[in-house]
């Protein structure tokens, strides 16, 4: 089944490359992959899962806070800051960018703008989540077939 394995690996590599090309992930994700070794075999999956849980909670808090009659912008800003930090640690580039825009609107205390941004962030988050989950599944298949995950080279931009 060597041919099958090679095909799977190629598919995985293509998929990962696409993610980088589209700007969904950036070089920070590669850094994470570098940290994974025999003593820490599931590092990437663990950190990404942590990111998903944290971000979902933050997004819920944001929705709730923005729905209040008197919006506490300090709180909202704090949440967005957290989200920005998390997403940049993972390398979820688009989420991070959306967070930056959100913060600007927050500074201006522009509620409709904030709401629009929140929608954007949610979309980006869901996108990166589904993409990463597919990526992990592909990786699992490759590993199960006995191959190793090819390290993706940062495509030169």
């Amino acid at each position: 089944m060597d041919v099958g394995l090679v095909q799977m690996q190629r598919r995985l590599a293509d998929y990962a490359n696409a993610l980088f090309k589209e700007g969904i992930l950036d070089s920070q994700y590669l850094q994470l992959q570098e940290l994974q070794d025999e003593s820490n075999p599931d590092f990437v999956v663990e950190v990404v899962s942590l990111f998903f849980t944290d971000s979902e909670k933050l997004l819920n808090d944001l929705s709730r806070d923005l729905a209040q009659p008197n919006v506490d912008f300090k709180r909202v800003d704090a949440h967005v800051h957290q989200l920005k930090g998390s997403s940049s640690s993972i390398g979820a580039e688009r989420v991070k960018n959306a967070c930056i825009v959100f913060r600007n609107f927050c500074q201006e205390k522009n509620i409709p703008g904030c709401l629009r941004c929140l929608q954007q962030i949610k979309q980006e988050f869901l996108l990166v989540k589904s993409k990463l989950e597919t990526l992990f599944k592909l990786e699992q298949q490759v590993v199960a077939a006995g191959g190793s995950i090819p390290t993706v080279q940062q495509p030169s931009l």
Partner: protein
Amino acid sequence: MMDSCNCIEPQWPADELLMKYQYISDFFIALAYFSIPLELIYFVKKSAVFPYRWVLVQFGAFIVLCGATHLINLWTFTMHSRTVAVVMTTAKVLTAAVSCATALMLVHIIPDLLSVKTRELFLKNKAAELDREMGLIRTQEETGRHVRMLTHEIRSTLDRHTILKTTLVELGRTLALEECALWMPTRSGLELQLSYTLRQQQNPVGYTVPIHLPVINQVFSSNCAVKISPNSPVARIRPLAGKYIPGEVVAVRVPLLHLSNFQINDWPELSTKRYALMVLMLPSDSARQWHVHELELVEVVADQVAVALSHAAILEESMRARDLLMDQNVALDLARREAETAIRARNDFLAVMNHEMRTPMHAIIALSSLLQETELTPEQRLMVETIMKSSNLLATLINDVLDLSRLEDGSFQLNIVTFNLHVVFREVLNLIKPVASVKKLLITLNLAPDLPEYAVGDEKRLMQVILNVVGNAVKFSKEGGISITAFVAKAEYLRDARAPDFSPVPSDNHFYLRVQVKDSGSGINPQDIPKLFTKFVHNQSLATKNSGGSGLGLAICKRFVTLMDGHISIESEGLGKGCTATFIVKLGIPEKLNESKFPVMPKVPANHIQANFSGLKVLVMDDNGVSRAVTKGLLLHLGCDVTTVSSRDELLGVVSQEHKVVLMDVCTPGIDSYEVAVQMHRLYSNHHERPLLVALTGSTDKVTKENCMRVGMDGVIQKPVSLDKMRNVLSELLEH
């Protein structure tokens, strides 16, 4: 003239005498008739209740009218005017009406009045009956009260004598008895002995009667109180004076219950019963009779006494048993202390002797080995070698004796370590190979593939056991080969029919090692096998020149094996047919490999480590979980020892001198990480003790960097941090 007076002629001719009498009678009748209602009214007014007032009125009217009629009749005897006649007629008519009404009314009233009478009779009978019953109940209640009081008195003590005396006294009091006596069966059971009486002074105690008298049998065969003759031997306790007419005597049996009599379903029957006899005498010359309720009282009391006596007996029994146990305890304690003293004395003796024996032994062995190094003639060499061998044997014997004595009194403890099992077998093999090759014996070692490499147990003693068994095999084989097999015993092998009391319990962190040593040597007579493990018994039939040893070897092996929760056995089909020794011991499975003293696989692959980072203690503060995890992963990858905190307070609580580097996230709004740096500077005034402070920031502007430098941070790293960046910064920092 006749028409004008308008008078009525009387019916009959006036007859003077008859007329007179009629006249008088009518008068008296009228009088009586008028007085009756008066009397009635008078008496009814006096009585409190009379329900028939209307009747009274009616009756009164009737009587009055009758009287009136008779009165008016008085005028009709002579010539009377029409008016009188009219009045008379009116009166008669009225009387007729009222009397008819009364007659009709009486039809209703008279049955009522009659029934009142019958009711009265009935109630009187009922009252008499109730009185009788009340009397009965009262006597019963009295009896019950007496019984309760008696029982209370009897049961308030557990002392047999008190119980019996109290019974007699109380019974005597309650029933006003003249004498009350208790006859107990003697030990032989053939006689009844007078044990207790109410008026003790006057009656001899110790008087006996044979038990098989008819009167006694009669009483014993019934559970009721039986009236007996005052002349029977049991009742003739008091000296009879002629003038006394003795009172009635009643006797009742008192069952003496034993513990074994208390069956659940059947209350003890007569079969093996012992009874005591209670005799009660009414006062003489009193003409009193025994009433039924008194007899019942006596029966109940007898039963209660039986129960109370059995309680007392049980108590005596248990007290006696307890005293016995206490005595035994004391004796055992004494014996134990004596035994301990003896053991201690023996151990002291052995220790001293051991030391005393070892010292010269040591000298002999040392000097003999030195002597071997010098120039010797072949004869001399032979002599020195013999000396060496003998002294080695003696040294072994001394060791064995000391070991055995320690094994026997339980003060021996296994030295549990983790060791390499395979190595143990190989060493035994190495030790035995020279001897075996001299005898040209082939030794094969088979270790099962599932035999763990490492085990937990007493390595030295295990080796001693294997060596002893294999050594014996070699010793007693002149030719052929020895095969040693070792494997992990599965559950079915563990149940060995030859060792019925060996019941191993397999568990998760232990395994049973089974070693079998087969030799093709001289074998052992099956009859001698049990003696093998007895110490100091040497198998005489096998004594050869080469065989040395004390005979203690197998005994010690057996003790070691037993200490390791195992079992050892030797089988042989007979002389010349070889011998198989098998033993099973319980060994532990070591938990982690890195606890053993053997080299451990390094956790971190070597290619990413820079030597100066391994073990470096780093403290990371970041309130964002994800970036905290990423930073931690980074540092772990570099080989650092990472601790993470999520707040400033936590940081200050955890930080210590051991941490060489502290990485702080400074871009969290609202938390002044700069102040942390200031505090750290204050805490660790000494420059060398202070951990290096590094700020992690996401902002790129110069102001942040300047602020960091101002508060005394040692370095600034910009997020996102890459592996190379972290490595470079750390090396730079640590170089200073």
